[in-house]
């Protein structure tokens, strides 16, 4: 399991980098923007909280950089990100955790769906080289995967919401509804999530299809696939166990790299649809200069991405015995 340990170590290092960036950036920016923000807190919260914010943003701080840094680290690990301006007087942590389920539901499900579907379609396309699926798809998906997420979102709104009135154009749920675990609410939320989900799905699936297709084509040239044919195995088994299982491995590694795009896309899509998830809240906090909330959300996004990558790494260990025998 050394492989997993190594990846965990990487997780920690990256997280540390994100936290440190959070700490350093406001201090490096000219014009000391955080100063203005601090003004908005005065008189509204207790001095300890003020002090914590001063440490986080490097304002009016008489402590040395290094000791500020360690205090900040301590605060982060205790989940104390401060108090949100936009949702005053709620804690940042509280707000963040409110938005998280919405994003997990939308982006999490869609990404997994896109990965699964995309990989499957890519595998099938490569399996039938030269077939209709294979000759049409690559050019189409090459083009669609270079569409900006937000533009596709706008198109979708225009088409399905304005033109055809099939689906709602914004928000996570109708304002008139009562929030709660009821079927009506769930159905309503689902309707609201459909357009954003489709947008993300359509744009991100292209990359999965193409990479899986290319991987599979390369794997199909391998001797062990020819050997499987020679053994007279059924095509389905060859495609699945021999080609598929080997072709997906580089895709899992590539998963990590493409998450960056998914995150970017998710933020923009939530923005366009006013969907109350992490991305929307993140942009909102930027707009209203609610830096405490912004920092908390940035770290949350980072942690989510790292967790997803770790999951992909675990999957690699399960699927590829070569990683188990550390070389």
């Amino acid at each position, binding site marked *: 399991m050394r492989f997993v340990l190594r990846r965990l170590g990487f997780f920690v290092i990256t997280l540390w980098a994100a936290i440190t960036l959070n700490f350093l950036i406001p201090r490096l920016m000219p014009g000391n923007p955080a100063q203005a923000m601090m003004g908005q807190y005065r008189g509204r919260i207790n001095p300890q909280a003020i002090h914590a914010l001063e440490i986080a943003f490097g304002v009016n701080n008489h402590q040395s950089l290094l000791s500020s840094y360690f205090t900040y680290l301590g605060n982060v690990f205790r989940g104390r990100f401060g108090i949100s301006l936009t949702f005053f007087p709620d804690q940042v942590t509280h707000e963040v955790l409110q938005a998280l389920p919405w994003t997990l539901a939308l982006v999490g499900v869609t990404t997994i769906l896109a990965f699964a579907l995309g990989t499957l379609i890519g595998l099938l396309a490569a399996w039938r080289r030269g077939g209709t699926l294979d000759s049409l798809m690559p050019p189409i998906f090459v083009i669609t995967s270079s569409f900006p997420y937000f533009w596709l979102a706008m*198109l979708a709104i225009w088409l399905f919401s304005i033109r055809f009135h099939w689906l709602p154009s914004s928000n996570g749920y109708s304002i008139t509804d009562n929030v709660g675990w009821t079927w009506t609410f769930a159905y309503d939320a689902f309707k609201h999530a459909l357009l954003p989900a489709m947008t993300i799905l359509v744009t991100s699936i292209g990359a999965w299809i193409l990479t899986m297709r290319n991987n599979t084509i390369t794997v199909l040239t391998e*001797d062990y696939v020819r050997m499987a044919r020679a053994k007279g195995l059924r095509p389905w088994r060859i495609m699945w166990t021999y080609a598929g299982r080997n072709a997906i491995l580089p895709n899992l590694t590539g998963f990590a790299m493409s998450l960056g795009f998914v995150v970017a896309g998710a933020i923009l899509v939530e923005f366009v649809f006013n969907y109350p998830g992490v991305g929307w809240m993140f942009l909102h906090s930027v707009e209203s200069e609610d830096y405490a909330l912004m920092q908390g959300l940035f770290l949350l996004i980072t942690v989510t991405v790292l967790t997803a990558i770790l999951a992909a790494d675990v999957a690699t260990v399960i699927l590829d015995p070569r990683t188990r025998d550390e070389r």
Partner: protein
Amino acid sequence: MSAPSIGATDHLATPPVGPAPMVAEVRQGRWGDLWRAIRRNKKAVAGAVILLVFTVIAIFPGQIAPYDGQAMIFEPALPPSWHHLLGTTAQGQDIFSQLIWGTRLSLVIALAVGALATVLAVLVGVSAGYIGGGTDGFLSLVTDVILVLPIFPLIIVIAAYEKNAGLLTLVVVLGVLGWSYGARQLRSQTLSLRRRDFLESARVRGERKSYVILFEILPTMTSLILATFLGAAIYAVLTAAGLQFIGLGDPNSQSWGTMLYWAQNSEALFAGMAWWAIAPGLCIALLGASFALLNYAFDEISSPALRVRKLERSRFPRAEPPPPEPAGANDESVLKVQDLTVAYATDASPVVAVDHVSFDLARGEFLAIVGESGCGKSTLLYAIARLLGSPLPGEIVGGRVLFQGRDLVLLEAKELRRVRWRDISVVMQSAMNALNPVLTVADQMRDACEAHSDMSKREIEERSREVLRLVSIDPVHLHSYPHQLSGGMRQRAMIAMALLFTPDLVIMDEPTSALDVVAQRSLMVQIKELQERLGFAVIFVTHDMSLVSHFSDRLLVMYAGQVAELSETRDLFDRPLHPYSQGLLGAFPSIRGPKVQLLGIPGSPPDLARPPAGCRFAPRCPHADAGCVEAEVPLFGVNGSLVRCVKHETVA
């Protein structure tokens, strides 16, 4: 959101099919070939055209746009018309003009960020890959961390603290954060290049490290560097547009993203100004698509495996073969190959790799097929086993392969599957490649057993152990993965697997060439023993005649896709009939016996895309004369042997 380039990472170092002879025509070299390849590829043309259009617009916006994009002088919210091709904005600006004027910024961002990111990626990736050690460890860590950190949110955070960042800041930030993916790819390409001898050769020559990196490594990675550039350009276009869209760019700048920002702010979609929202996005999409198309096209061009070529079957009229003899008339033969012909498509004319090859194989006979690279022996072998297709190109375009009375060429897929492994099994050259790395040996044996029998799990396990013992492998290795076994063991495990059903015919493609001399010898002896014990016939392909000299019953010598000679092994070694066989035998220095000066065979085999008229060996034959090249040379029978030489009586 482009597809990461896969094919450009490594070119297999395997020799091409047939050595490239000195062609008389003048080749324009790599750039000429590249240009032609680009012209042929539709995606590349499409991408290039779009890019060209945008470039022209970016250079001459004043000449193309009817109005000044910023001027708010028109009536707001007009629908498209002749005066305003795309209507006007909520502020009364002409959308079409804005679009034209906005091209420049978008293109500049794409190219500038692309260039910056590529330079950084090359610096980091190649240095990490080449220098190795601690430097690599550190650089790789930095690369991976930046790769994983959510870039878009990070840029937003930076932009949050400094609003209205200028163009330069945007370019620098995007460039400095966007090189990591390219660096990773360049690093792995460099690592695989490091094993290439020409780099070592340069170092041994005394070149400095910096020279090697700049002039030996980089020129071979041009396609990957280009792919990195294109990928970075796409990333730049989309990310910049995204940032401008959410209002983090300069709202007064002229760019497509900013147009969308204003459109969104003015609720363009709801206010019936759909074009305002759609048009800029379309341009962004098109620009991104042009880069993506070019990227994809270069991928295809640089890795031939990704291209599909169709063979024109019409060029190979299928002559009516003579009716098959009724089964049972000749029980001695387990396999009869008749006039087998295999061809594959190339960028030029199709190549006939196997040309009307015929032979019979008796029950329990050991036939060795011998020849050099490009002679078609592997293609022949896999054609018989019906395993053509990637990576070995080719289709059977004529002839028959009669196995136990049935023509394998005509068999339906399902029927064919039933014959496989039970009656005909295959042993390949490299067990490391032929065994699935993610399955254990036991799994792979079980696969075959389940596909062809009703054996219970226990019976399968028992049988697997049995065949492993047959080849002197301790059955404890049954549950190992291929990479855990040594080379020799893997090879023997493959042979064991081939014997699971004690087939009538085992086809072997150079199964010993990856082993050292001592292991080769012992494996050959083992194969021969098994063959005699279990009674299966063997077709054994090899380039090394002496290897099979003590084991094969008959030897088939192939040259340029044709049978040159077919004799009993001893006869061929004692009295080779074909000048090629003679030449071959004369090319092996011997361990014992007198030391003589050897000559080998000068020249190279012919280019099978344009086979010479008459005898294919004539250009290299010491006995050739005018009579040899007049017409196609048939096979002559001589005392039970076959030889394709018009002068066989005089040359032997």
